């Protein structure tokens, strides 16, 4: 994989000084202006790049033990660094609900201006979201939604159902002329609701294509190891099929390895989430992976934008309203060879 050289910590750990120190994940983000930064024509004061009132943003997320979550943190940090008027107070990520509550309460006590929270568990952290709102700190709820709308000022997140839907539509269009087409699904961790939503969207989309039948579904657990193991089994079980949707590009690394090991290239594969390695493979066009459906980690950068706008009392450009919306569901774009160059900078490692 073409990636930046290792960090100095890594090389130190291995005891060689051969590799020079490099910036953390420089390839990852995101100096590209996105739509909402362009000033709108109407009279509402919209956030822009110009320095405004200083804003302190508290950011609390889960432990970055997965490429996508790591990209979330990096997107937030890089975005905040871009604004001279933003100070980011970022907590050590934690998967422990109690610990995350404590961290958020600390941020409340520090009287940050705005909070951005990606909860380890949305339902369990609702109360602390309410606390913050009552204390007069607007909360931007990132991705995993709180149980009560009172617990956030604005929610921004991905669309798991839409991810499945778009993956299904893409595959449907690719196979629409094929009789008795067979499709296989390699799902993520089955214990998570988002996995069920993705599968539901995928199934709903396939209903539009009566010539396509989903013949098998197995759940991996977002790890390379499980992706390899489950995919190897699926390939053994299904001697031929036409398309594969894999929910997650991280486990997709393992799935691709299994496909390579089985010597199979008789189907097309669609990934999920938008890892850089997947996009590289799509661009190269030399593997079964033809597309991936985004679940963009850039949402963290957008969340910082929203938080800054909230802190400065501004709206977002491109909309007529004075205030920013309460809910923003992001579109799960399908990245193919045709548009991969546009998305490549957002691909995460």
């Amino acid at each position, binding site marked *: 994989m073409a990636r930046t050289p290792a960090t100095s910590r890594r090389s130190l*750990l291995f005891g060689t000084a051969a590799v020079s120190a490099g910036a*953390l994940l420089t390839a990852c983000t995101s100096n590209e202006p996105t739509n909402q930064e362009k000033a709108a024509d109407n009279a509402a004061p919209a956030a822009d790049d110009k320095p405004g009132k200083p804003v302190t943003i508290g950011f609390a997320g889960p432990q970055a033990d997965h490429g996508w979550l790591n990209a979330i943190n990096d997107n937030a940090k890089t975005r905040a660094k871009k604004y001279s008027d933003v100070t980011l107070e970022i907590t050590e990520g934690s998967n422990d609900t109690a610990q995350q509550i404590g961290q958020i309460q600390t941020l409340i006590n520090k009287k940050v201006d705005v909070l951005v929270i990606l909860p380890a568990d949305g339902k369990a952290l609702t109360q602390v979201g309410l606390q913050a709102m009552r204390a007069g700190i607007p909360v931007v709820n990132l991705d995993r939604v709180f149980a009560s709308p009172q617990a956030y000022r604005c929610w921004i997140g991905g669309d798991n159902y839409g991810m499945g839907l778009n993956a299904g539509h893409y595959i449907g269009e690719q196979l629409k002329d094929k009789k008795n087409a067979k499709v296989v699904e390699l799902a993520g961790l089955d214990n998570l609701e988002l996995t069920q939503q993705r599968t539901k969207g995928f199934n709903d989309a396939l209903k539009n294509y009566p010539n396509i039948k989903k013949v098998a*579904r197995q*759940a991996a657990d977002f790890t390379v190891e499980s992706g390899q*193991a489950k995919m190897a089994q699926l390939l*053994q079980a299904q001697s031929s099929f036409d398309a594969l949707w894999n929910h997650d590009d991280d486990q997709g690394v393992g799935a691709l390895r299994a496909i390579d090991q089985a010597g199979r290239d008789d189907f097309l594969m669609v990934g999920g989430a938008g890892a850089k*390695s997947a996009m590289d493979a799509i661009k190269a066009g030399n593997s079964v992976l033809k597309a991936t459906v985004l679940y963009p980690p850039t949402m963290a950068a957008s969340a910082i934008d929203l938080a800054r706008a909230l802190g400065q009392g501004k709206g977002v450009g491109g909309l007529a309203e004075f205030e920013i919306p309460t809910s923003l569901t992001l579109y799960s774009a399908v990245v193919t060879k045709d548009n991969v160059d546009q998305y490549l900078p957002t691909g995460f490692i």
Partner: protein
Amino acid sequence: MTQPATAAQKQAPTSAAKSAGDQESSRRPGLRWDVRSLSLLGVLAVLVAVGGITAPDQFLAWSNLQLVLTQASVIGVVTVGMTFVITSGGIDLSVGAMVALASVWATTVATQEFGFAGILFTAVIVGVGCGLVNGLLIAYGRMVPFIATLAMLASARGLALQITDGSTQVVTVGSVLDLGARDAYILGIPPLVLIFAAVTVIGWLLLNRTTFGRRTVAVGGNAEAARLAGIDVRRQRLYLYLLSGLCCGIAAFMLIVLSGSGQNTNGNLYELDAIAAAIIGGTLLSGGRGTIIGSVLGVLVFTTITNIFALNNLETAVQQIAKGAIIVAAVLVQRRSMRGGDA
């Protein structure tokens, strides 16, 4: 196996006659082992029958046998090491974390520059190093194995996460990838399966034919008696955790070959899988009795179950329920046949 058996037969006429009425069961313990392993073979045979009936075309294929053995090989090597530790009355909860740490350390960009040898060497050294720390803490620091290896679990996983920052480290060294490729055969056998087989054979010999194995059993059976018999119990414990770490290092290398990458989530819950396989194989959790063959059969039973479920496209929930039920059933069947062997 054959030589002692003939020696026992020569002995049989006198001893059998004398011991028959003497005590309940002075028959050789070896017999009971066979019953144990046989019952697990029976479970495996039932599974093969189920697989053959429900998915005849896919399950009974040669390629599927390769698949099952390959998938079993990584956890299988870990389980061999775990079997030694459990036989000695210990436990190693850190195996999964050691596999994770070894696999990510061996796949950093810096390590990969050293190619095949660098990756293999790093994986093994990291495994042995973690095992050394475990062993020193337990043998000379007098820590309870459960706590010492739990601490190792936490810190090794943490270090693995720190090295990767949560990202997947893809292997670019061709010779490593080739070892896990489709056409890679050594003597007609996939290399990973060959490593697994070699570790199994060496493990069996080590446990059953060497002073090391005998001392392991003695320490597990009665550490105080072993100490008073003049065995260096602490050194033995140190070696055992080193051995477990070594197995994890080898397994990490195998996982790198298999998945073509290193990730901090590797080896997830290996500790439970390895302990479960060893226990249903017939190794006593309290120590003093261990069987490599049983452990390997235990691993094969688990892998075959997973394989059959996947071939039949069963849901995760159903898989988990059935897996639990099969563990209980296997242990019950085993206990019953053991009791039969006792009578």
